[in-house]
């Protein structure tokens, strides 16, 4: 189950702030590359490089329309990240449910002892 740390991985793909900016820009709908170049304020080759990484993990889809390349978000590919956060969250929730029980006991003990900490 060990996963190689390559860029062909949704987690790595979104770890780069510029790539998250691209995803944010595409969240509003399909956009041509030129739009993204303008929004990010980067040179086109750099934007294309980030788009390639995002395409490799399936986070964005591309289609040609006339002379334009249009990119759009594919949220499905980002599901592993969502799932991971949910798993992590559940693990902490269960931990804290146990902590509630411990705290309830400490509270009762403290009330029983008056001002004693």
């Amino acid at each position, binding site marked *: 189950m060990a*996963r190689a740390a390559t860029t062909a991985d949704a987690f790595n793909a979104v770890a780069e*702030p510029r790539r998250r900016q691209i995803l944010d820009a595409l969240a509003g709908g399909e956009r041509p590359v030129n739009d993204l170049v303008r929004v990010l304020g980067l040179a086109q080759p750099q934007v294309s490089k980030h788009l390639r990484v995002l395409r490799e993990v399936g986070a964005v889809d591309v289609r040609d329309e006339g002379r334009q390349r249009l990119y759009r978000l594919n949220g499905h590919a980002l599901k592993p990240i969502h799932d991971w956060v949910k798993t992590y969250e559940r693990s902490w929730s269960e931990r804290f449910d146990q902590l509630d029980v411990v705290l309830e006991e400490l509270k009762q003990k403290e009330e029983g002892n008056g001002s004693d900490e």
Partner: protein
Amino acid sequence: MAATSSGTATVTLPSDKQILITREFDAPKHLVYKAWTTPELVKRWWHANRGEVTIAEIDLRVGGMWRYVSVTADGFEVGFHGEFREIVPNERIVSTEVYEGIPDAEEHAALNILTLTEVDGRTTLTVLVEHPTKEGRDAHINAGMEAGMQDAMDLLEQVASSLR
């Protein structure tokens, strides 16, 4: 779950190197602090229903070490340790955290910042986990993914036995 439960933990990813965990408790902060820093008490809640905490060592002073080891029901052992960097009793603890299950673990140590804020006898707890590198957070994520697989297997087992 426990009748005293005050809600679920929320986890957010404020940046590409950070994880933020937040939860409110129906108890004053000095008791949350006590439950967080007393080994016998940590053993009772840190297992997250995934097994048993076999080791909980806490040398609560700046420069002191902590170490937790837990073993799942099927024998999978995970260990974490770190060093206390800053301690404000009942309010704030800054410590490092090393997940022992990865190669070069020490290099990937995360920094954990615990804060406790009390309002009207209720305490909001936050833990901000800061990884020094993207690789460090990836390793943490991978550990989470493995735990997720374990959860999935446990669920599958429950479903399977309910069909009998």
